């Protein structure tokens, strides 16, 4: 015969185990409810500190296939590198808008902008930017011209721009626009003149 105190002990342990299982199930349900949806999973950039400034963005318009200079007021930080990033993010915000004149693929982002050498800027786009980009000579050219010209106009002293995708060199943006070389800002300005 099993002693009484042992039976009481076993019953108590069973009750604790059942209680803990119930508690674990409830907690799991709560976590599932509060989990961040996949589309908001990418990191959120820190709020920009700085006075609002008037800047010129070179915005692509697919319909006539042109690039137009457009003024915008955006808060810009003091540092050159941070300013460069904010300029391009403001430009991309236009392209990612539903009513965009030159839509980019979902999730397109500028990962970083590096001013690594006097006169050289490196723009690092994310993979979604290139993978989701429409293919075509003009449509890709408009994107590249828009990025380079906006950056070179907003940040004085930049005369060469290199574009990376996902931190790596890539042959073309989406089959046409060359990304293997370094863009000469003076030559891009000439190209932009033809696109206006």
């Amino acid at each position: 015969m099993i002693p009484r105190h042992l039976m009481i002990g076993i019953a108590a342990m069973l009750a604790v185990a059942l209680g803990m299982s119930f508690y674990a199930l409830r907690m799991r349900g709560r976590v599932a409810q509060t989990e961040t949806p996949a589309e908001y999973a990418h990191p959120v950039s820190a709020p920009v500190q700085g006075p609002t400034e008037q800047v010129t963005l070179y915005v692509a318009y697919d319909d006539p296939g042109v690039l137009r200079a457009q003024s915008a007021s955006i808060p810009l930080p003091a540092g050159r590198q941070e300013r460069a990033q904010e300029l391009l993010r403001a430009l991309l915000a236009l392209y990612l808008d539903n009513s965009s004149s030159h839509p980019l693929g979902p999730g397109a982002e500028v990962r970083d902008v590096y001013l690594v050498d006097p006169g050289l800027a490196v723009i690092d786009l994310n993979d979604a930017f290139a993978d989701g980009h429409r293919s075509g000579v003009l449509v890709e050219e408009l994107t590249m011209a828009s990025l380079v010209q906006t950056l070179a106009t907003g940040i004085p002293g930049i005369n060469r721009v290199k574009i990376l995708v996902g931190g790596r060199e890539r042959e073309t943006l989406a089959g046409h626009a060359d990304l293997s070389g370094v863009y000469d800002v003076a030559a891009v300005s000439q190209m932009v003149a033809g696109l206006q």
Partner: protein
Amino acid sequence: MPWSSRPRAKQRWGNRPAQPAAAAAISGLAILFAFVLVLSAFADDKRLTVYSGATSYSLSVREKNGVDYVGLLEILQPLGSASARTDGRTWRLNYNGSDSEFSPGNTRARVQGQILDLPAMFLMENGRGLVPASSLPSLMQRLLRVPINFHEASRRLFIGNAAIHFTAQVNKTNPPTLVMNFTSPVNPMIATEPGKLRMVFTREPLVPPGSQTLTFDSPAIPSATFQENNGAAEIAVSGPVPLFASFSNDGRTITITPAPQATAHVPAPAAQPAVPAPAGSPAPQVSPGAAAAVASTAVQYFVVVDASHGGDERGAALSDQLAEKDVTLAFALRLRQQLQARGLTTLMLREGDTTMSLDQRANMTNAAHPAIYVCLHAASQGSGVRLYTALLPAGAEGRGPFLDWNTAQSGFHTASQTAETSVASELGKRQVAVRSLLAPLRPLNNITTAAVAIEVAPPAGKLAELNSPTYQQLVAESVTAGIEAVRDQLGAKR
């Protein structure tokens, strides 16, 4: 007194005028000696190539006492798990778990437990085990347990069933073409010289045909010879006129044709001056992968047409069914027809659904020395035709006769713009909407002649008409007229 040392030094040099001459002579001799050393190093560069079903690779061969030696570990490492260790007296090899022993200075070895007599002594050099090349068939057969076929004179070692066979046949078309079909894709290095087109296969286990010399009943391509030497195979096609080679069928077919200026069916305009190649230019050498070459000393006005994309690279998806690569090919074929109808000889870089890199396209074009390169693209966005010349990237300057690859077009940009303006004018005359732009579009910047890219968009935005014969014909006629109109200007520039 330190001040007095300077004039004294001056005087010392001044009194001995012969010393600089002696120094120059010694320097000259040293340079000559170094040059001879470099030359002799290249001359002695004996190679042995190993072909297996999975890989092929080349190794250097050391000559010792008149015998060719190769490193045994280097041969085995790409084929399996191989390691070696030595205690100075014995060199022990472990290959895929089985041990073998070799003794330096000895011809007898124990290979996987059995005695094997080598035709010459085993050597050890800085821990490397060297075996005579002639021992490889028996040694490798024992180690790998598969049939080995060794072409000793040419130092080509075939493991198992590794082999690529080929057939060659001349089609009596006009111009005649030599079609060579290979059992696997090949990628030879192509070089041309007067009266001969040479294809060197270093990586492919190409095996000789029944006869070393193939003769064809064609005056334009009378014969081809197969040779093996220094770890490579070579097919040399002879002909009285310069020859082109082009690839198709994913590298399984090589088609050799007489160069466009030599083809009989294309009428060459009498008033058209021949365009001489740069004086003293060597026969063009095309890197592996490039698919065409031409050797010529006098080139007439001819056009290279490049249907962009192709093969695995589909380009833009113009609609659910329509890929850019197909539209560009259809348009390129139509353009060639138009150009040839006007007596403008044409080379198409691809005539089928072939994958080609941008570097290959540039290599082929530059080797052919055309007067103009026309690259075709198609788009669903916008309407009409867009013409592009190269937006040159920031790059290095050319050095002497060598051009910077990324900015090779810089010296030809004016010619490109001349051609672009002419084509735009002809499109305008035919009421086709046209824009002229710069574009960062390779391989335009790598081309060493006038180079224009044409992006054809649907007329009035109607995508369905992009592939319509009427529309393509209209554009092709305009482009042809534009190219023909600048014949004298572009011809004179070359």
